[in-house]
């Protein structure tokens, strides 16, 4: 590592922390409907949307009504994207005459984009028309992120409420997230990206004769508008096959830096917003600190492994970014449930890949997905106060709410659902020809390919060890199902927890209250996260990246 490598890591982390209170405070004003300066620019749009759909913005929903609204909205999105792909050949904006997508792939893609996962079994430039990318995928990029915000907001309201069941309104949360946060940031960001060289047009692909007289077909399309939101909304689904390694998707070191920052910007800021909303910025910062520590330690291990054991290996990396930016990105994209890549994870050193896997396996709680990272982390907070409560023998509480059997049961469900997908589905793939025939590597790396795919699905990340041929019926269906369970198997328990907490009374803080705003708590929380993560996944990880690391050191190849 040289001086520039250290500097880039430092500036990245510094800017992330510096922007957190700024954006976080803005989010707080938006979600708690407080006045702010530029509100008038957007609020007319908000009110006219409510008028158009005939919604009273102050009407409240309980957790079941909220869940129904959320699920019905997401189901419509899923069906729309699914059907759109099946008939795209008959639809406009398809200058390359790309054919209709097969139903298993269409199912996989629809499930993937509706849930903010954005796993891609297809190559964008040779599979999807501009129409599908715009009307189908770009929309889901926005609303799936907004859905994440909504669920997290319900949980926060559940914690704040006293003895009532009014948890806000899904449509209002959705509208505010899009209008005030996602849309303005995306417009700004896409214009900056175009300035750096990201393309934004509706032209047909360009065939050129190169200097050495070869024919080269250069794909075009409305890329910038999709890339901006895929980075900001922790979506991660690339416009092109190689995602942000593609020069049209990420042309310069600056575009790379901003795209990298955008991965963590909203999830990180939302933790600050959480602190503001519950009336204790301090509580928010301690959760932030937990995430920051986990992120930084992962990054250090990943960087050490790559520079120490794999130095000089430049497979799957782009020269304009260099090794260090490939690693910062790798860590950010797997910590947040983004899943975009600027270098190929499959070609990184085994321990670096291990960190990526482990980040996802923890359930995307290290900043995590937009909204999803916070509610995922709060599940672990509930488990931690529960365990701490058991140790000292009192009823556990969090922010004045008693944590009882129901909350703990639901929290455990939220932890088990993704873990079940990761381990059981990988096991199924290992035992079937359909699973094994897609592998491109032999030895432990082949196992890692399958493990990575189902981890990415269960955790709703969407990044890949792209050697695996995932565009088969087996993987499209299995991964699609895994994604749905990994998303709603967490969302529904979280909404249920919110509903239950909401109807409880607030217990005033006393000297006997277990404090959640000090270093002891941070330490305990990290311990619980690591113990749950390690106990669940160590056996699987040891068969994949760990054994590969040891074999690499001994010089064995496959």
């Amino acid at each position, binding site marked *: 590592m040289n001086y520039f490598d250290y500097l*880039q890591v430092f*500036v990245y982390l510094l800017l992330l922390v510096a922007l957190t209170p700024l954006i976080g405070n803005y989010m707080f004003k938006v979600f708690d409907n407080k006045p702010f300066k530029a509100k008038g620019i957007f609020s007319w749009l908000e009110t006219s*949307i409510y008028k*158009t759909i005939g919604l009273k913005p102050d009407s409240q929903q309980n957790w079941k009504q909220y869940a129904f609204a959320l699920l*019905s909205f997401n189901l*419509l999105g899923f069906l*729309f994207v699914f059907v759109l792909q099946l008939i795209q050949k008959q639809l406009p904006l398809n200058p390359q005459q790309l054919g209709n997508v097969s139903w298993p792939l269409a199912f996989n893609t629809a499930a993937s984009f509706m849930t903010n996962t954005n796993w891609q079994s297809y*190559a964008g*430039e*040779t599979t999807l028309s501009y129409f599908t990318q715009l*009307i*189908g995928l*770009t*929309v889901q990029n*926005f*609303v799936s992120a907004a859905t994440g915000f909504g669920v997290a907001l319900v949980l926060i309201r559940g914690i704040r409420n006293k003895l009532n069941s009014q948890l806000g309104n899904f449509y209002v949360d*959705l509208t505010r997230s899009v209008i005030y946060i996602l849309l303005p940031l995306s417009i700004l960001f*896409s214009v900056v990206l*175009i*300035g*750096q060289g990201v*393309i*934004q*047009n*509706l032209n047909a*692909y*360009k065939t*050129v*004769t*190169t*200097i050495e007289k070869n024919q080269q077909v250069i*794909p075009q399309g409305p890329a*910038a508008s999709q890339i*901006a*939101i895929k980075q900001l909304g922790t979506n991660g689904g690339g416009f092109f*096959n*190689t995602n942000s*390694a593609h*020069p049209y998707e990420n042309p310069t*070191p*600056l575009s790379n*830096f901003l795209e990298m920052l955008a991965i963590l910007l909203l999830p990180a800021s939302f933790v600050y917003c959480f602190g503001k909303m519950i009336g204790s910025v301090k509580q928010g910062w301690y959760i932030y600190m937990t995430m920051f520590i986990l992120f930084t330690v992962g990054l250090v291990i990943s960087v050490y492994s790559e520079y120490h054991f*794999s130095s000089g290996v430049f*497979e*799957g990396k*782009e*020269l*304009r970014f*260099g090794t260090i930016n*490939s690693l910062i990105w790798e860590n950010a994209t797997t910590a947040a449930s983004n899943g975009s890549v600027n270098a190929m994870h499959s*070609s*990184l050193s*085994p321990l670096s890949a291990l960190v990526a896997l482990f980040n996802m396996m923890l359930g995307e709680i290290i900043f995590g997905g937009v909204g999803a990272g916070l509610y995922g982390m709060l599940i672990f907070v509930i488990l931690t106060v529960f365990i701490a409560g058991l140790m000292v023998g009192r009823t556990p509480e969090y922010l004045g709410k008693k944590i009882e059997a129901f909350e703990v049961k639901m929290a455990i469900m939220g932890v088990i659902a993704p873990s079940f997908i990761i381990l059981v589905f990988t096991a199924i793939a290992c035992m079937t020809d359909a699973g094994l025939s897609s592998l491109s590597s032999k030895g432990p*790396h082949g196992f890692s390919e399958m493990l990575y795919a189902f981890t990415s699905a269960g955790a709703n990340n969407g990044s890949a*060890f*792209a*050697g695996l041929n995932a565009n088969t019926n087996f993987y499209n269906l299995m991964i699609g199902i895994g994604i749905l369970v990994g998303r709603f198997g967490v969302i529904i328990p979280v909404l249920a927890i919110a509903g239950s907490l909401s109807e409880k009374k607030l217990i005033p803080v006393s000297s006997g209250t277990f404090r959640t705003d000090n270093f002891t708590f941070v330490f305990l929380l990290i311990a619980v996260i690591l113990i749950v993560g390690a106990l669940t996944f160590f056996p699987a990880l040891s068969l994949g990246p760990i054994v*590969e690391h040891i074999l*690499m050191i001994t010089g064995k190849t*496959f």
Partner: protein
Amino acid sequence: MKTLFISLKIFLVMTILTGVIYPLFVTVIGQTLFYNHSNGSMIVINNQTVGSELIGQKFTDGQYFNSRPSAIDYNPMPSGASNLSVTSKELKLRVRRNTAAFDSINQIPASESIPSEMLYASGSGLDPHISPQAALMQVNRICKSRHLPEAAKKRMNDLITHSIEGRQFGFLGEERINVLKLNLELDKQFTVR
């Protein structure tokens, strides 16, 4: 039922807002402010589009600076990487082959180390850049292929130095040279055989 109907209505509104108005608005701004960038940073010479500044091309001719190895042979339909792991036998073999080829084409003693981007394929398969060092190592061979006098070498080295794109803001990314632009400049300044 009422909820379902509201879901449908707001879904349509969101589709129009984020799927139609937003991308078209960005397209209009992009096309107005950054026409060339929006349309792919194409390089046009004598009314002929010879490629995009951002999309790497295959250069294997002895008279040109060669680009990085590519898993897709610089065919962007679709972009792609090898995804080979560090424990892959195939990757080891490829790197050995690329090393030998680079050494023999450019007549470099085996003891001299080659910049790693010239041995390993990129993530996109379309990486338009090589490092300044990798360019400098090709100067002797290019001069020979083009039958240029000894004095041309210095001019070519200067051309390389002038073509270096530095780290953005002095610290972001890596120093690099755009191969296509360098080769176009090469053809302009030195005779082609």
